[in-house]
């Protein structure tokens, strides 16, 4: 019997939501690590029982938790994230140099092949790797030490490395995205990196062709067509057909092209989902209507998905890591809100229902498809 396990990180703990393949009846377990911020929880594609969670607090710092039984029990593993060498400086909000300082792990990306291999994207922006199940972490300093690094500036939420994509089509190729530096690509397993931001236009950057400085909110890729990338930028939904070498805008008829998450249907590489947000100063849906927008054409033409979602007086946000899809035959789509709701659609977005309504603010949503 197939099933799904939804891994939810919130401001005050982690929750594990499980259902069979019908995705109608849900069991909710948690809070795990109650009172701690859980920026991300993600399972290993190679071993679905292996989960990693980023646990942090302003008081007590960063921990990484690992489960080897699908989230029933957890054990803390390594939490030493030391930048390699002398970290140097990036730009602070006022333009002055500011030392690189570790704050937290935003995103954990387990290898598709090896349950013990996992990458971590951190604030201040850096990429770390563990090959022993999270016990020890080593920085891949080539990204932070890119020649443009001293000019990177934090976004409003901090200078976070929030997206890591391991390219299934080309061994050694990976992508990372940083707010507010932009998107980067490596072809040597993270040793060296190049910015891939050509075609992005960001108001607030005087140079239209700036190599870095873009506030990329999220990248998404379909495993069957890894040369195509989708991006939700601060403003603008973008697409690249050449592995990030160039980008073009596909915001089309969206009511707002500001937003945070973007994801791709599990079986249809041209079907893309975003959640438009009114603006960068009004982090809530336009008109108080919570609408997921779906494009079946790889962008430009978007349809509002509203069935089962609140269409009045809704002023929540959906954060960048808070949307995911399962890979059942009828693709399931999931997202969590800052109001604590986790919505699920078992029919690729045609209709929605809340799995749970009153969690702490949701920071991240991942889903595992279980056989």
């Amino acid at each position: 019997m197939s099933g799904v396990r939804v891994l939810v990180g919130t401001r005050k703990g982690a929750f594990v939501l499980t259902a069979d393949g019908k995705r109608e009846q849900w069991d909710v377990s948690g809070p795990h690590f109650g009172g701690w911020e859980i920026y991300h929880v993600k399972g290993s594609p190679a071993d679905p029982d292996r989960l990693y969670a980023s646990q942090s607090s302003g008081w007590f710092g960063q921990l990484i938790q690992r489960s080897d039984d699908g989230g029933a029990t957890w054990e803390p593993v390594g939490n030493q994230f030391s930048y390699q060498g002398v970290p140097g400086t990036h730009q602070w909000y006022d333009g002055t140099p500011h030392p690189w300082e570790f704050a937290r792990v935003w995103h954990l990306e387990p290898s598709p092949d090896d349950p013990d291999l996992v990458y971590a994207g951190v604030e201040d922006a850096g990429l770390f790797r563990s090959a022993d199940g999270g016990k020890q972490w080593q920085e891949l300093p080539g990204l932070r030490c890119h020649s443009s690094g001293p000019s990177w500036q934090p976004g409003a939420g901090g200078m976070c490395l929030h997206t890591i994509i391991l390219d299934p089509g080309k061994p050694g190729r990976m992508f990372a995205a940083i707010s507010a530096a932009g998107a980067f690509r490596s072809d040597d397993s993270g040793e060296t990196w190049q910015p891939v931001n050509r075609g992005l236009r960001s108001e607030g950057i005087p140079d239209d062709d700036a190599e870095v400085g873009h506030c990329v909110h999220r990248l998404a890729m379909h495993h069957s067509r890894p040369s195509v990338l989708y991006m939700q930028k601060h403003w603008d939904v973008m697409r690249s057909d050449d592995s990030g070498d160039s980008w073009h805008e596909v915001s089309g008829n969206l009511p707002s092209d500001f937003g945070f998450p973007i994801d791709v249907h599990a079986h249809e590489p041209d079907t893309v989902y975003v959640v438009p947000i009114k603006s960068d100063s009004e982090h809530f849906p336009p008109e108080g209507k919570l609408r997921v927008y779906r494009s079946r054409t790889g962008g430009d033409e978007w349809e509002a998905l509203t069935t089962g979602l609140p269409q009045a007086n809704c002023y929540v946000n959906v954060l960048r890591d808070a949307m995911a899809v399962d890979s059942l035959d009828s693709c399931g789509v999931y997202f969590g809100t800052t109001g604590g709701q986790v919505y699920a659609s078992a029919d690729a977005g045609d209709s929605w229902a809340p799995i749970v309504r009153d969690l702490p603010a949701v920071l991240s949503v991942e889903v595992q498809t279980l056989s």
Partner: protein
Amino acid sequence: MIRVVLPAHLRTLAKVAGEVELDVAGQVTQCSVLDALETRYPVLRGTIRDRDTGRRRAFVRFFACERDLSHEQPGAPLPDAVAMGAEPFLIVGAMAGG
């Protein structure tokens, strides 16, 4: 025997209830107490003081004998009452945040 009181979240992490009792070799200082604590409970490394710099985390405070010792030098001797086990060394999460 040195008595240490942890804040609730760190008691959960360390899987302890109530006070922690530690043997501390040599002079009893913030540093030697925390070294002994982290040796006994490695999961606490990085939660009280920064792993790289050894500095106290900003929202952690150290109290003992009705005094705030947070700004004392880490190598300074703790009060005799702590060293003799008459009073606990309190590790406190500052009242901040939500």
